[in-house]
């Protein structure tokens, strides 16, 4: 009897809790930052102008490249009707966390791929080429990623994968892709190991931490920083990028006062005491925004007014929400500027908002480009094979693609699969989460990947 009563109470409590969440449909903070802010602010206009100016500068250096979509259409036009008929089903897979803490970014990646495939299918409607989409959820966990990878590999129709938000998951899944010679093109992984581990099938359309860190260090030097206190979050990402920052900072003659890791999430008082004693010009934090927010707020509360710099892990409107006014004097380097910064991406931003009802999160435009490159490689391989290509043929086609311009930049892949050159951005922050898209672009740097 007692037990039944307690069961009823338990169920009742849960039901009322569920009801409570059901009745507040006001907002869904896990899903994407606020609504797309209309790009009207002066800052954006300036930044865009600046960006376009620089883009044209680089465009002078390399002759204007064909866009990926043009390339796909041109190539598909050369396909014989028999080949098109023999294609059968062709799929592109995506793997990213669709659940968990990082689902906002992961869902953006998935949606970017979906949009690219949909638009290409519409454009290719007459040629008989149609590509299907197979999204997977890696839950940001290495084992889930590698189990999914086996699943992807077992489906012979999947000829290309766009994937992984987290480097650890990508590294765990790459052996499986590699065994099947399946192309993996990453829209977000900045860890150098992705393309440095000897996997011929690994590509990415973003820069690398061993350049992102040093670019931060050069920025620090240019802003007159003499001493820096480096903190990181003890994850492969945060510690990795902080180490590259440290190496370059030391090379540039900036004094590194400390290099310390912490997985503390809330109370940073002990670290701040040490920072206060060290009195640096700049604090570099290699980590993500949930930690950076309270850290910044507590630091400013204590009267620590040093400049604050971090990698692309800080790139989220959540940071503005958590830190608020404390964001003054905060900068971040990133490989993914908000879509409003890309000259060609305005259309993408609108399309995304129309289809998915929310602004495109970081890395979503890169996912769109990744998928477009997948399609380009598949179509090229299909023309050569005169029918359904094998994974090896797609891989070969990917390696031989000419320099093509996507919506986030012009890419050709280096021997290892890195984009050559890659673009890095440095932004200063503003404290209004709704205006995060309009953070001021401080500088934009293009850099070739190391070749060694």
């Amino acid at each position, binding site marked *: 009897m*007692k*037990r039944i009563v*307690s069961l009823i*109470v*338990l169920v009742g*409590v*849960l039901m009322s*809790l*569920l009801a*409570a*969440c*059901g009745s*507040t*449909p*006001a*907002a*869904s*903070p*896990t899903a994407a930052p606020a609504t797309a802010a209309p790009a009207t602010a002066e800052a954006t206009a300036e930044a865009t102008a600046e960006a376009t100016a620089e883009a044209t500068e680089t465009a002078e250096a390399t002759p204007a490249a064909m866009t990926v979509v043009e390339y796909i259409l041109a190539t598909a036009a050369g396909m014989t009707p028999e080949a098109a008929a023999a294609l059968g089903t062709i799929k592109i897979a995506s793997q990213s966390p669709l659940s968990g*803490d990082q689902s906002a970014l992961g869902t953006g990646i998935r949606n970017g791929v979906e949009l690219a495939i949909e638009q290409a299918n519409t454009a290719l409607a007459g040629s008989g080429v149609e590509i299907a989409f197979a999204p997977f959820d890696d839950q940001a966990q290495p084992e889930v990623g590698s189990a999914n990878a086996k699943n992807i590999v077992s489906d012979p129709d999947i000829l290309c994968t766009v994937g992984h938000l987290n480097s650890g998951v990508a590294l765990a899944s790459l052996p499986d892709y590699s065994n099947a010679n399946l192309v993996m093109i990453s829209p977000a992984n900045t860890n150098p190991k992705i393309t440095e581990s000897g996997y011929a099938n690994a590509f990415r359309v973003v820069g690398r931490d061993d350049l992102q860190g040093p670019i931060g260090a050069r920025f620090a030097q240019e802003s007159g920083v003499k001493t820096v206190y480096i903190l990181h979050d*003890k994850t492969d990402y945060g510690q990795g990028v902080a180490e590259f920052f440290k190496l370059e900072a030391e090379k540039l003659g900036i004094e590194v006062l*400390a*290099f*310390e*890791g*912490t*997985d*503390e*999430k*809330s*109370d*940073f*008082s*002990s*670290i701040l*005491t*040490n920072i*206060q*004693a060290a*009195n640096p010009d700049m604090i570099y934090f290699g980590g993500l925004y*949930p930690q950076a*927010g*309270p850290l910044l*707020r*507590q630091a400013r*509360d*204590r*009267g620590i007014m040093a400049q604050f710099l971090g990698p692309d892990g800080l790139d989220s409107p*959540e940071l503005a*929400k*958590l830190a*608020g006014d404390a964001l003054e004097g905060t900068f971040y380097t990133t490989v993914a500027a908000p879509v409003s910064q890309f000259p060609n991406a305005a259309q993408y931003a609108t399309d995304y908002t129309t289809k998915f009802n929310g602004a495109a999160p970081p890395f979503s435009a890169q996912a769109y480009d990744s998928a477009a490159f997948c399609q380009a490689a598949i179509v090229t391989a299909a023309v050569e094979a005169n029918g359904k290509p094998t994974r090896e043929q797609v891989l070969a086609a990917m390696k031989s693609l000419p320099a093509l311009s996507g919506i986030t930049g012009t890419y050709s892949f280096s021997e290892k699969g890195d984009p050559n050159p890659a673009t890095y951005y440095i932004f200063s922050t503003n404290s209004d989460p709704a205006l995060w898209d309009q953070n001021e672009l401080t500088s934009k740097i293009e850099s070739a990947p190391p070749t060694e």
Partner: protein
Amino acid sequence: MVAEANVSKQNLQRQRTLQTLRTVFMPLGQLLLFIVGSAAVLGLIVVVVAFFLSRSDPKIMQTAIAILPQVMIDGMVRGFLFATIALGYTMVYGVLEFINFAHGEIFMVGGFVGAGVAYLLMQWGLLSTLPWIVFIVIAIVMGMTVSGLLAMATERVAYRPLRNSPRLVPLISAIGMSLVLQDVVRLIATSSPLGFNARFETPNFGKPFQIASIPLGERAIPVQISPKAVIFIVAAMLMLLALNYLVNATRLGKAIRAVAQDRATASLMGINVNQIISLTFLIGGALGGAAGVLFGMNIGTVNPYMGFIPGLKAFTAAVLGGIGNITGAMVGGIVLGFLEAFVASYLSLFTGGAFSGASYADIAAFSILILILIFRPEGLLGESTTQKV
């Protein structure tokens, strides 16, 4: 005769009041003693180590001394956090001999309630107009109410049906409850405007109080304590006093002590044991909720998983001080807080950056727990003064 009787009655009355006052305020003295004591001991260790290390690098001594006062303040704030959470553990343990694993989550819920109250006040535009003391009282009272009731509900749902089962059974149920609470709060938070990482809005408390300024080279290192931290410490001390009064000087307290000592006999004496146990959970949960509000306000952010590690450390603190003993819990919290702050601030300084102090602070806390359990399982305040709640 009558007059004499009256006088002696008055005397008796006065003596009783004095007695009460002593039992209520004594622990505060004990606590201060431990604060001063552990600060002195750890400070001394730091100075001695720094002295030996400074032979190779004289800067170490300077820096070590310069940050010492600030480290002590950090340690004290951290200590009071552990102490207030530990009170809840120790109360429940005293009565039921059961580790309420979900207590860390009760603490977290308090933090979220505080953040929610602050959010609503801000939405209504009251946050900046309301006097700060009113804001704090509203937030704490709300946090205490929700957390206290929630603690009572968890006991009713997940622990009471298991009261006569083997020891392991309620413990596993408590671990389950801890996981459930984490994710239920997460579900609610992510569906509300607060979000997974919720910002704790506060009125502007102003700049930190500058206590001193220590010269280091050409610069001066400030020693400061933020107004929020002062509020935290004052509130924690008030809670300790109130709890002491409740347990030692009221009928309810007497009933609680009776149940703690012998449940069966207490029930024979006409005490409603179930009710007393519920009340114990209510009080412990309310204290945890208050700690959650104060902590959230202090650090500025709350998230659904923030309660687990502080909860674990608070349990360590309770064991360190002698579990079941109220003053012991406070003392254990303070000692642990100091220890962590010292390790976090000095380890990397003393090892030349080879060991990152902030990472090893957790290891220090758990090592202390193991050492205490091996060498002095009855805790710092020992069996002699242990008075079961």
